[in-house]
């Protein structure tokens, strides 16, 4: 089900079945364009499929926005090894709640997207990695998988193609890091979710040491539409190099928070004002975290911006996972910064020194600062430590922690300084150790 009212401004191409009765059933799916795309794809060569995806300018919806067609093209075929199709439904980026809806309301769309990926690299096995907290979705997706087997869309000799494809769900067990693709693969293999050294990238050495297509749930979910309507039609929905639509997850201080499917490049201020009904309680906008908690915050005056990967990158932030947290004028940025770094310290896998120690140290400073024990020198120290992590950690989690922290300090320094002038807590500031 949907948990918020849709907006008339939405352009629903992957969420239009959400409102249908019995939307998860294969009959509903088949009655509404279901498994049409895979029939088309089965008549296409891998090269043609990849070309169509390139034309669509579909980019990964997990966060990094890597062009999907290119990613599929990196998978070597004919290595003699099996190949795998992995769906990243480990949705854990704070601010993001879209994969949940896609699996809850339209699991067959995801399966069809994975089928097309599987056919492209002649894979015989796909896994949907679902975060452990989404247990009810495993039941829904498992049911859909069973239906697809019954109707011959999964299993042996799919649609008479002579090609076999199995799909399984796999549960996570609570680890944000497993959203990082190589950590996800480690987790899928029954290990700690520690990211792998790259290269080799998962396309070449992925699941079970074999070539692998690994995409986000929303990315796969967009694939059937592309093959039904053509890559060019998909591309035309968005902005150059940012094809199609995406599910924008809006949270925070707006009147109508919710998940809305909008074309890439949709203006942020229109999203806030026209779709989400503006800032609640008549307050003013202070800032927006535009792409999940790892994306650097945008001040209100920076929010006149189209929501696509390139525009946000130009503004030194990122579209990330499409989770937008809208913050009003009363928001305590220090508290947000503290909660953000607490999250990354909790989720750091601990593998590399700068992330493990950096997130922990920042958390401790910000906790003290937030509790009224801050020092003027802490403000620069926080920025400096974030800088010492940035670009130097094993995987992107360190950057994901450092970037927003640095942005909080750089853009809201005044708020941090104001904290120093608030009533001092009784907590004394520890002396520096003499070493």
């Amino acid at each position, binding site marked *: 089900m949907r*948990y*918020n009212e849709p907006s008339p401004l939405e352009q629903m191409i992957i969420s239009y079945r959400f409102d249908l009765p019995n939307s998860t059933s294969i009959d509903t799916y088949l009655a509404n364009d279901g498994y049409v795309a895979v029939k088309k794809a089965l008549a296409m060569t891998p090269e043609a499929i990849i070309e169509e995806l390139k034309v669509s300018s579909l980019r990964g919806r997990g966060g990094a926005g890597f062009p999907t067609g290119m990613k599929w093209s990196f998978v070597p075929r004919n290595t003699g090894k*099996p190949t795998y199709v992995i769906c990243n439904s480990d*949705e*854990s*980026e*704070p*601010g*993001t*709640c879209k*994969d*949940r809806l896609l699996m809850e309301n339209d699991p067959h769309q995801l399966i069809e997207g994975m089928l097309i990926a599987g056919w492209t690299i002649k894979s015989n*096995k796909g*896994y949907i990695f679902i*975060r*452990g*907290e*989404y*247990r*009810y979705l495993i039941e829904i997706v498992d049911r859909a998988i069973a239906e697809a087997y019954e109707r011959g869309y999964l299993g042996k000799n799919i649609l008479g193609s002579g090609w076999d494809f*199995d799909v*399984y769900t*796999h*549960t*996570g*067990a*609570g*680890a*944000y890091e497993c959203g990082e693709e190589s950590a996800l693969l480690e*987790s*899928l*293999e*029954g*290990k*700690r*979710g520690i990211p792998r050294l790259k290269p080799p990238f998962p396309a070449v050495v992925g699941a*079970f040491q074999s070539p692998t297509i690994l995409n986000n749930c929303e990315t796969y979910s967009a694939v059937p539409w592309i093959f039904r309507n053509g890559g060019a039609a998909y591309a035309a929905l968005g902005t150059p190099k940012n094809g199609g639509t995406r599910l924008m*997850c*809006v*949270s*925070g*201080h707006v009147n109508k*928070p*919710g*998940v809305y499917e909008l074309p890439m490049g949709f203006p942020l201020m229109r999203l806030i004002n026209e779709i989400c009904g503006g800032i609640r309680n008549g307050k003013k906008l202070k800032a927006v*975290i535009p792409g999940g*908690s790892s994306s650097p915050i945008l001040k209100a005056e920076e929010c006149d911006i189209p929501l696509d990967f390139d525009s946000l990158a130009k503004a030194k932030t990122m579209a990330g996972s499409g*989770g937008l*947290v*809208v*913050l009003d004028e009363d*928001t305590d940025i220090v*508290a*947000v910064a503290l*909660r*953000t770094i607490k*999250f990354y310290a*909790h*989720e750091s*896998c601990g593998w590399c020194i700068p992330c493990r120690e950096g997130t922990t140290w920042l958390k401790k400073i910000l906790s003290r600062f937030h509790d009224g024990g801050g020092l003027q020198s802490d403000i620069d120290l926080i920025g400096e430590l974030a800088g010492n992590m940035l670009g130097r950690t094993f995987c992107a989690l360190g950057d994901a922690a450092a970037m927003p922290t640095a942005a909080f300090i750089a853009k809201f320094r005044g708020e941090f300084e104001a904290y120093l002038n608030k009533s001092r807590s009784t907590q004394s500031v520890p002396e520096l150790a003499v070493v």
Partner: protein
Amino acid sequence: MTFSPELEARFAKLLESYPTGRQRSAVVPMLLYAQDEIGCVTQELVEEVAHRCGVTPLQVDEVIGYYSMLHRKPLGKYHVQVCTNIACQAVGAEELWDHACERLRLGNKEVSPDGLISLEEVECLGACSWAPAIQINYDFHHHVTPERFDRLMDALANGSYSKKAS
């Protein structure tokens, strides 16, 4: 170790779902599903999973330490998880958390003396647009105010809680 027939059936399906020789993949799902049935990860379970998946107990131990949903100590019959991450925080999750601690007289990761309820402050649950959110076991509850929280806790206490009502 013996499990319920349903769980055994799930385990059998799990072990079949991974490529030959890759049964280690089943370690995390087995632990989580078994924990749901027996309450926590016991040493006996560690040995059992290690045996069934063809790994050493140490390799299972390593996994347990890593994943935040795997617990060595029993949780309450109802595990109440309150998200306080930024999207929930923006709409009152910290106040909700304080309220929860007070109402249940429990701290983070504590279990009520009768074993009925355990409380945990958790990271983003994926309900940001319908915040603040909590999970009771695997059920989501959205837009949870302190008043709604109290009603839910009352229902847990008097046995009238029924799955799914968000």
